[in-house]
Each structure stands twice: as structure tokens, then as C-alpha cells.
């Protein structure tokens, strides 16, 4: 589990240092797949008979967040953007330094919240890293494509935190949450396609 959480941390930070939006979408997909593996392992730890909601969540993470989100967003953006390049965070020591401070602060914060134990602390720290870095990206980005990446990173951070819980939500609630996430991604994709259309001044 420790290795998975470290991999997740790397996958969360990867878009910040990547230079093309394709790589960033793939990093989002990787985050989804890692979340699915973590959820699968958590389900094994707290398995309850007939826990359909848990399996729905794993399917959501693997199929929706891991495969559909990057593929759909890439399809929506393909041929619409002026350049394959994108900087989520300016290539500047100051902005990279702030990113690093956010990561360290989130991990430190995770270690201070009870129960102070290595695995839950790291889990909480990585989830907080995703939420804070997502907000940081949103604060810096003016391009819709960058903003949607920030928003999905936040969403993934919230789900990672949700995986820390031992009590899962009931099936109707899980289905409603999946439906809402799918709807949000579809709306983001459609709007992204319209807004990323090169304008006359491009």
C-alpha cells in the first residue's frame, strides 16, 4: 500500500512538471487506475458480503477516471488547441518551490491529524496534496484545458480521502456520485471543445 501511495503522489505531481496536455491527461488516467487499485485493496481489508457499492466505486475509478476521462478529454481537445504544449505551473524556480512547499505542508499536515500512524498519515497527506495542488493549478491557470486538469486533480484527491474511510456509502448514493462525476466530465469536455477552438486572434 505504501508503494501505491508513493506512486499516487508521483502521479499527482507529474502534470505539474509535464510539458504537454497529452501527458497530463495520461497522468490523470494513471491517477484513476492507481485509485482503483487502492480501492480494491481497501475493499479486501473491509470486505462486507454483497458490497456492490464498493465494486461500483472500483469500476468508477478504473473505467471512468482511469480510462474514460483521459480518452474523452483528449478527444474533445484534439485539433482544437493551438499548441500541444501546456504549462500548468510556470517553469520558474519560485513556482516550483511553492509547489514543493504545498506537497511538504500537506504531508506534514497529514502526519499531524490523528491517528498518527505511518500509512493513514501518508494516505491523508497524499489526498491533501492532490486537493491543494489542484487549487494551486486553478489559481494559476487561465486556459480552460489547464483549469479542467486542476479540477480533476481535486476530484481525485477527494476520492483518495474517501478511500481512507472504513464505512462506505450505500449503493444509491454511490450511483448518484458516479452519475454526477460522469455528467461533470461530459460537460467539461463539451465546453472545452468550444472554448479551446482557435479564435481569430490565434
Amino acid at each position, binding site marked *: 500500500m505504501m508503494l501505491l501511495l508513493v506512486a499516487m503522489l508521483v502521479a499527482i505531481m507529474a502534470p505539474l512538471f509535464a510539458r504537454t496536455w497529452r501527458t497530463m491527461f495520461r497522468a490523470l488516467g494513471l491517477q484513476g487506475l492507481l485509485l482503483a487499485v487502492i480501492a480494491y485493496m481497501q475493499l479486501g481489508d473491509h470486505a462486507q458480503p454483497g458490497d456492490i457499492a464498493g465494486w461500483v466505486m472500483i469500476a468508477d475509478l478504473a473505467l471512468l477516471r482511469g480510462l474514460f476521462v483521459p480518452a474523452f478529454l483528449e478527444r474533445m481537445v484534439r485539433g482544437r488547441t493551438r499548441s500541444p504544449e501546456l504549462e500548468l505551473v510556470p517553469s520558474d524556480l519560485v513556482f516550483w518551490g511553492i509547489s514543493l512547499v504545498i506537497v511538504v505542508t500537506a504531508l506534514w499536515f497529514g502526519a499531524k491529524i*490523528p491517528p498518527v500512524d505511518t500509512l493513514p498519515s501518508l494516505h491523508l497527506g497524499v489526498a491533501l496534496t492532490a486537493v491543494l495542488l489542484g487549487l494551486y493549478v486553478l489559481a494559476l491557470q487561465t486556459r480552460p484545458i489547464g*483549469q479542467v486538469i486542476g479540477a480533476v486533480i481535486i476530484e481525485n484527491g*477527494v476520492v483518495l*480521502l474517501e478511500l481512507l*474511510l472504513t464505512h462506505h456509502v450505500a449503493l444509491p*448514493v454511490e450511483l*448518484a456520485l458516479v452519475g*454526477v462525476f460522469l455528467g461533470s466530465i461530459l460537460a467539461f469536455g463539451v*465546453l472545452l471543445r*468550444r472554448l479551446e477552438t482557435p479564435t481569430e486572434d490565434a
Partner: protein
Amino acid sequence: MNAILLTALIPAAGGLLTLIPPVRAFALQLLLLVAVANFGLSLALTIETPADAVVYLGQGYFVFDATAQLFMTLINAVFLGVAGFVAAHPRPDVGARRFGRRFTGCTLAFMAASNLAILSNHLLMGWAFVEATTLTAIPLIGHDGTRAAWGAAWRYLLLSTVGLSLAFLGFVVLERSVEVSAHEGLSFFLNQLDVANLGSQTFAHKLGILLVLFGYGTKLGLAPMYSWLPETYDAARPPVTTLLAAVQFNITFVALFRVLQSFGASDQELIRAVLTAMGVASMVISAINIVATRNYKRIIAFASINHAGALAIGLGVGGSAIYGVLLYAVSNALVKAVLFLTAGQIEERFGTKRTDEIQGLLHEMPFAGIFLMFGTFALLGFAPFGSFIGELVMMGGMIEAGQTILFAATCLILLLVFVATGRTMFPMIWSASKRDAGRGSEPFVDLAPKIFFLLVLLTLGIYMPAPLNELLGQVALSLGGPR
């Protein structure tokens, strides 16, 4: 099937019907039919159900209590007014016909989700339905197809999604704090939440509450993440803006009420401090913007932020102010409906949203001028409208709670808003017309919804019917108000 759930199922079925090509030709008639059915049903259910009754439905996922009774009737009344306005306002151009079809489908889906959000007995389920209303509103906001319209839809989606994600994060943090301290899960069913006995007054618990308030505050247009609201209200067509301002605002308000009903007693100090701070910040920011803006639609939008701030302060003060908050919220839904629908007609006639380019409204559009005048009076909290009584009770609650500085600050901001709004809006109505355009046509069917809203507003200010008073009292009681 329980009749209460029909208030969501009827619009949902209507929305699905609009997907069938032959039905599309009658989309607006279908919209009006569903709106009449839904308003009639919600009113009948509210009249026949005692104010203190609590009915659980759908395996406990939904509840019909005083809060649901009050707000379900309110949003369906606004829906009926908007549907009547759109159905009475057909224009021959293709764009308008397409708008009618899209408006019908998305509005019916929006209303289905809105009614379910109000009925939700589960905090996360309620959250999901609020988000669903956001998603169904996107095609309506961006309908004009301009880059500005899609840009407004984008910012609306982005900030709503981020705000609601933070609210969801808050719920997860709350659950985690309970799991750690009490070694059991937190039931998100309202009737099973026993926060006081879980003894989880940890830092994580407080952080969770903070995130939930901040998230829902964003959806209500409260500072600091309010910037989506004026842009969206300005870019969307008048019926869409009315739905956002009078329906979506109130369902988010109900979602916030559900949090207060669950955690208000155990986390009173934190909730009051956060809501008051967000409310004061919103009122200050909106007042500054009202002074600086020369776009009448944006002025009404910033006034909406101002009202959201006043409502947050009222909730923060608590006690007897809660009754005023409810009356103010109900009145404001109707005020915003009157003003945004009128603003749309003025824009259609004059082709501008700038206040300094419009004169002689009473001469060119007498009814629109009268509605804008009375709507602005109600917006500013003049007697004899319901908003006046609501504001008065909230102010009284501040004095009663010993919050004299807050009272003085609120009075000062309201005075500033009063002067700034009056200075900008009233010359549009009363000044002499500089163009020779003649009197425009204003058919009665266009006016009927607004007359209905104004009459209800007057009724709330002059004579409060006993059953409504009892209902308001019951909701206030559930939020910690006096018996």
C-alpha cells in the same frame, strides 16, 4: 407510488418526452402543463400535510417535512411563473424555437433534480442533486453560442464544481473525524445523525464543517468565490437567470439548512462565525460593485449576492433572526423573478443592458417600468413587501442577540446599496425619453407571472396567512429559532 415523489417524476417524465421528435413541436405547451401540475401538486401536498409532520419516502432517502413543504411550493411557484413567461413569449425566429425546445428539456431535468434535492433526507444525496441542477443548467447558460456565453457557462461549471467538491470533501472529513474518535461511521441520513453523542469535536471535525460551509457558500454566490454569479446571471437569458437566482439558490439554501439542522446545535459557534464572516464580506463586495456597475442585469446580480450575504448573517445571528431569514429568502426568490424577467423584456426592447442608455421606461414600456419600480422597491426592502418584514425581523434579531456592531455595519451597507441602486435604476424609469420610439406592446400573458409574484410579495408583507406563518415557524424551529 407516493404523490410527493411525483413532484420530481412528472418533470423527469416530461423531460424524457421532449426527446421524442413529434413532441418537440409542443415543447412549450408541455413545459407549461408540467409546471401547472407540479405547482398544483406541491401546493396541495403542503396544504394537506400538517406543518409539524415528517413523512419519509423512498426507503428513507427522501423526507417531506416543513422545510421541504415551504421550499418545494416556492420553487414550483417560480417554475410556473417562468414557464408561463416562456410559453407566452414565443418569437418566430428559429433561434427562439430552438431555445424553447432546449429550455423545456433542460428545465424539466433541472426541476426534477431540484425537487429531489429539496426532498433529500441524505446529505450526500442532496449534494449530488444540487450538482445535477448545475449540470442541467449548462446548456441553458451557453445557449446563445457566443464565446462570452460559453465562457460564462465554463466559469459557472468550474467554480460550482470546485465549490461543491470542497463541500463533499468537508463531508468526507467529517466522516473521518467520527470514525477516528468514535470508531463508527457517520450516517448521512438526517434522521439518524446524532452528532452530539459522537463526541467528535476534533480539529478535523471543525475543518469538515468549514469546508461544507465554504463549498455551499460558493454555490450561493457568497464571498470569496462569488465571481461566477454576476457573469452567469448577466450572460444567461432572463428565464434561465430566474431559474438560477430563484430556484437553484433556494435548493442550495435548503442543502445548507440541512447541514445546520444536523450540526447547528453541536457546532453553533463555528457555524455562526463562518456564516457571519462570509455574509459581511459578501455584502461589502456586492455594495462596492453595485456602486461601480452601470449594467442593470449585473446590478440585480450583485444585489443577489448582497441578499445572500444578509441571509448568511441572519443565519449566523440565529435566534429570532431565523424567521426573518426565511421570510427574506422566500420574498427574494419572488423579487428576483420579477426583476430578471422584466430586465429581459427591457433588454429586448432597448437592445442594451447599460443603465445610462435607457430613459423613459414608463413612457415606452409602462408595465415593465412599473414592475422594475416595484421590484426595485422590494429589492431594497421597502414596505409593504415581504422583504421589508424579513429584513426588519433579521435586524431585530441582531439587536436581540446583542450584535450592535454587526447591526450598524449591516445598516450602513444596506444604505449604500439603497443609494447606489436608486441612483442608477430610478432614472431609467422616471426620466424623459430621448427617442421617439412610441409605446411598445406588452401583452397581458407576459405580465401575468410578474403580477402573480408581486401579489404574493405584497401578501407576505401585509397579511401573513396563518398556515404559512406556522410553516415558517416550524422551519425556523428546526434551525434553532424560538418556538
